[in-house]
């Protein structure tokens, strides 16, 4: 379908300023958001303008070029993602029932949780691997570009009011115990058992600018690619493809598909419904 532009409107000027801002951020701070989905960026930056007290993105750009503290605040708007533990329980059930039996055949297992944000899905996998008795020969790599989110992920602390839905998901995903076996509650928060993360490596890594750093048997990257345009999706999927061993697994979000990617041919459906693919 043809697309139209609204050349003379404020919205059109906003889009121009948005491109310039992302270029400025890249040149100054080396964080590359230039291939993020435009429609979500528009909403997030509109919110940031409002909260940070600016009228236009040009004004904001002028300030962030000179004020790293202000950029750090803007960075949160550009990156923060909130997930849930065992989000989409059937996905985690499929990993438990279909993927783990194959992973078990490897003497040592490497898992990459790409774009782990505040760590909900990382902890979910750590619990699942512990219950399936393969945690002691697994190393989990949890990466993100947001250092604050990584610290939050590493702490394993979540507000107690989120635990009811986490627990519901855990059971629906085939959890074998009670989720409360894995955390201690105090001061309105739940802190997950630190032994679960003894074999987790938390690292700063950008799917937009960094390269392959491990040979993985499972890459789980859910609801991260939806924020990328097709070019950046292809870059990320290329990294996953290059990281995975032959017959290694890739898990995506429930509405993310390899269909539109040039890397589609590098993968075969493993469980199409749960968006689990296997490197060919």
């Amino acid at each position, binding site marked *: *379908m*043809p*697309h*139209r*532009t*609204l050349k003379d*409107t404020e*919205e059109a000027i906003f*889009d121009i300023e948005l491109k310039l801002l992302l270029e400025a951020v890249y040149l100054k701070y080396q964080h590359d958001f230039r291939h993020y*989905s*435009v*429609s*979500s960026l*528009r*909403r*997030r930056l509109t919110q940031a303008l409002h909260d940070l007290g600016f009228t236009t993105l040009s004004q904001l750009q002028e300030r962030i070029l000179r004020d790293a503290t202000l950029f750090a605040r803007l960075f949160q708007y550009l990156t923060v*993602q*909130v*997930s849930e533990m065992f989000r989409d329980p059937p996905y985690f059930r499929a990993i438990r029932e279909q993927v783990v039996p194959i992973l078990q055949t490897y003497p040592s297992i490497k898992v990459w949780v790409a774009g782990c944000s505040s760590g909900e899905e990382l902890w979910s996998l750590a619990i699942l691997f512990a219950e399936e008795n393969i945690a002691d020969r697994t190393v989990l790599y949890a990466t993100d570009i947001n250092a604050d989110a990584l610290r939050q992920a590493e702490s394993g602390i979540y507000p107690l009011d989120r635990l009811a839905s986490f627990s519901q998901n855990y059971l629906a995903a085939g959890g074998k115990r009670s989720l409360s076996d894995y955390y201690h509650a105090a001061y309105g928060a739940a802190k997950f058992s630190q032994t679960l993360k003894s074999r987790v490596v938390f690292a700063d890594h950008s799917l937009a600018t960094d390269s392959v750093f491990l040979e993985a048997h499972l890459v789980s990257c859910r*609801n991260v*690619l*939806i*924020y990328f*345009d*097709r070019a950046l*999706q292809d870059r990320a999927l290329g990294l996953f493809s290059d990281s995975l061993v032959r017959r290694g697994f890739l898990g995506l*979000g*429930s*509405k*993310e*598909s390899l*269909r*539109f990617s040039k890397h589609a041919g590098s993968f075969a459906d493993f469980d199409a419904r749960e968006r689990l693919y296997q490197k060919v």
Partner: protein
Amino acid sequence: MTPSTDSLDAIEAIVIGASAGGIEALNHILPALPANFRPAVLVVVHVRSESPSLLPALFSARCQLPVVEPDDKNEIAGGTIYLAPPGYHMLVEPDCTISLSVDPPVRFSRPSVDVLFESAALCFADTLLGVVLSGANDDGARGLVAISRAGGRCWVQDPHTAVANAMPLVHDILTLDVMAARLARMAVGTRREPG
């Protein structure tokens, strides 16, 4: 502010918002769209995200047009109905593909009608028609403002106090029967030749 139905000839996309109570209304309108319907139709319904998505199957069985729950980066094709997946915002990118997001609910809703409408207005401009069906809250009001500002058309179901009162820019307040009849005329061949 009562453009003739002729101005619908230029419409390339229709965005529809409905609360959970609006499923009945959708059931009135979507099956009435003929097989040769030209515009693309993008729909947000407020449903609880934990419930499995039954709407695509429900509407597929009743509609003459293909009904799709799109994946991220799906192309938008004319004559196809796209239902926002539960738990995701559905947005339109500048290149007229669909993108999805798990950003927080907007005014308690994800998917949000406003999020779809505002992004679609920027892509489709004066070739967009926005339709708000009966709903329980004001989700859709801001989206209709955006569509109107971009030169698109706006319809609201009659009676629909929540949005109509908040929305002086609505072009038409229509009953479901009139909506269905007007939409049914937007089929292949009704489009005026350019120039």
